[in-house]
């Protein structure tokens, strides 16, 4: 892994942009550039030369790493110590950086059991819109000094500040892992998910696609053998390949041009009867849908199950791919954006108009 500190240069770039009043598009690997609204900005800031591990003590189950560090290299470095990122971030291509992974706030199949990006985010060092380097949180597990300005960076798509460093909570790699596949039609699979959500025990992935329910079990070998015997099903040979294809969207379900929607709903919502092909992940809590249906219909569908809808990929023009916010909530978003980035320098409009 490259160890390269260009904090001062990055800070200067932000200061220059602030002085000129010219917004910046922040890019890491640009692997997630498709997500969100197009950013039109006169300047670009590339984080990839700001990389490497700042502090890693495996016994603390925490790491501090520079924003431009390649995700792949980070995952390998952790694996060498038998550890991993709890939120199992997707890599869309080889270029993903950890800064981008945190900023986009996307978590993989183990989300229901091991938490979202924000749950692992213990601290950040960032540059705000005034060009100041600020540090919030740290490597410790518990910290309530001052407002929590770390976690809101997860999923803010870089609009609240430039992430120089992130401190993340880690988890040990499971001693063993098995994926079972059972033939189940959608209704039966949703019923199984509903039941399993009530029961603890070694699950770390439950997804349904094309009449097949996939159950990933992790833990001590004896424990998962016992649980596998209880649950039944065929063992999947290339289990890692399957979960990765789901997470990184290389599975055939994700190919083609039809718009891809991500609906997050209450896990026990049952069959939401979507207007298109469906892949169910997160034990029922995340539904991927391929559909040409108008955005409003999908937004209403998600909302009727307590959730929200994002148009993840797809060509049609749209206000924002993200779910619209209530006016009161939007007002708080605008105020917070202004508090951190008064001139609106960072990734203007990436999430919503005016943010």
């Amino acid at each position, binding site marked *: 892994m490259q160890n390269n500190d260009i904090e001062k240069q990055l800070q200067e770039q932000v200061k220059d942009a602030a002085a000129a009043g010219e917004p910046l598009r922040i890019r890491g690997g640009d692997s997630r550039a498709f997500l969100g609204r197009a950013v039109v900005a006169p300047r670009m800031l590339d984080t990839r030369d700001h990389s490497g591990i700042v502090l890693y*003590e495996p016994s603390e189950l925490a790491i501090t790493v520079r924003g431009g560090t390649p995700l792949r290299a980070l995952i390998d470095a952790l694996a060498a110590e038998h550890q991993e990122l709890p939120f199992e971030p997707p890599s869309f291509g080889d270029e993903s950086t950890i800064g981008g992974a945190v900023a986009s706030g996307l978590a993989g199949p183990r989300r229901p059991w091991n938490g979202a990006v924000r749950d692992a985010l213990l601290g950040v060092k960032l540059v705000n819109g005034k060009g100041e380097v600020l540090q919030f949180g740290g490597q*410790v597990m*518990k910290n309530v000094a001052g*407002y929590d300005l770390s976690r*809101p960076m997860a*999923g803010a798509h870089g609009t609240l500040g430039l992430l120089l460093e992130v401190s993340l909570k880690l988890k040990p790699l499971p001693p063993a892992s098995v994926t079972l596949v059972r033939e189940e039609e959608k209704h039966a699979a949703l019923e199984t998910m509903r039941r399993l*959500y009530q029961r603890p025990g070694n699950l770390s992935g439950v997804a349904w696609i094309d009449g097949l329910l996939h159950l990933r079990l992790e833990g001590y070998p004896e424990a998962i053998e016992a649980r596998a015997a209880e649950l039944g099903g065929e063992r999947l040979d290339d289990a890692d390949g399957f979960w990765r294809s789901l997470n990184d969207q290389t599975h055939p379900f994700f190919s083609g041009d039809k718009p891809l929607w991500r609906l997050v709903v209450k896990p026990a919502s049952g069959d939401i009867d979507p207007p298109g092909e469906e892949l169910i992940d997160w034990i029922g*809590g995340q539904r991927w849908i391929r559909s040409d249906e108008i955005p409003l219909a999908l937004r209403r569908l998600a909302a009727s199950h307590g959730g929200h809808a994002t148009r993840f990929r797809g060509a049609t023009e749209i206000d924002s791919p993200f779910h619209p916010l209530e006016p009161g909530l939007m007002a708080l978003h605008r105020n917070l954006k202004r508090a951190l980035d008064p001139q609106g320098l960072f990734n203007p409009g990436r999430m919503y108009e005016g943010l």
Partner: protein
Amino acid sequence: MQPDRTPATIPADARRRFLNALRRALPEGALLTEAEELHPYECDGLSAYRQVPMAVALPDTLAQLQQVVRICHHHDIPVVARGAGTGLSGGAYPLEDGIILSLARFNRILDIDPANRLATVEPGVRNLAISEAAEPYGLYYAPDPSSQIACSIGGNVAENSGGVHCLKYGLTVNNVRQVKIVTADGELVTLGAETFDGPGYDLLALINGSEGMLGIIVEITVLLRPRAARTTVLLAPFDDIARAGDAVAAIIAAGVVPAGLEMMDKLTLEAAEAFVHAGYPTDAEALLICELDGSDIDVDAETVAVKKILHDAGASDIRVADDAAERARFWAGRKAAFPAVGRIAPDYYCMDGTIPRRHLGKVLERIGQLSGQYGLTVGNVFHAGDGNLHPLILFDANQPGELEKAERFGGDILEACIEVGGTITGEHGVGIEKLDQMCSQFDSAELTQFHAVKAAFDPKGILNPGKGVPTLHRCAEFGMMHVHHGELPFPELPRF
């Protein structure tokens, strides 16, 4: 220790108009203004500091509450939210020119949704009451502060409280899915969602730990968890506290994440034993309590692994509790540690620093030195697994100067935590108590950023003003004695 602000002088007629407006907005008996009625609200768990508020409002409905906030907003009167008043940092300490907004009457459990493992409750519901309501479904709410029989869930969110099971199951922020807040101008806004994530910025994370300074929390949806099939508690005595610390690091490094991993030193374990007779070995220098949960096979495997680690680290006589009664007994001493210490000294002052686990030995040694220096005894109980220390400083408030001495001692402990990369508060919050130490942990740009965030939510500054984040002025005064990141803090500010 006082809020970082100058109270306003309110002319008598303005005050009368304000109170009349409140009286019209509230039902009979829901506005307290008489001295004897105000008395119980004078302080929270930081009871050395007391102040009578102008009034106490006890709304019963959301509409009433919104109206109260609007009236305060209109009249520029500070609002201090109060749950159960068990906070330890003066978060609910009243302001003389402000009102206490009590959430005590918002004590209804609105919904238990076992299929989605969610409970929706009002902010005044007690922490433990949620688990009790979920019990029939085999579910519970994981964060369990020691004060859980008394503290409110609204207060838990406002402080981002922890408990002995946070090592495995997370803090309040990791277990809350959605909250509804009333903003400073009285609007109702929903943050987060009942699903695995919500749209937009994670304002839910921001409201956790915001100490009543960004909004009034009026409804909370929490995640429930299924009870583990089996739970085991191990009790491991050590004859050397540093070795107990090493055992903690070794357990975590081995890839085991216990449900709880707590440590008590000799003073606290003796006090606890004398108080609740938990069966602790009083000849030990330190005691580790380790809880493991999961399926039978998981717990068996982890028990073997942990026992070996404890043994190798020098634990002498490890005991394992499998049945509920013995487990409860093992825990009883730890959970009663504060009151137990309260019995052996006229007063105690509870600190709350967090450090990277590997510095445990170093920081404990420093606390020992400081104890000698100040001539005050200190007991140590802590959430060892997540490095959260609770040194209890024993003193006698009736001896002139002892309270101030205990506070200075406490301040020095927090500085020691910052020096090793830790924080001045793991779970009790800043309130009025740690305003000075905030100046050490953050520089002026960071503090200014906090003030900007506060203004984004509360432009008039009526929600719990003067708490949580110090003014740069205060830091400049305090900073004369302190050095941040090796530099003189606030070089741009004048020195007095």
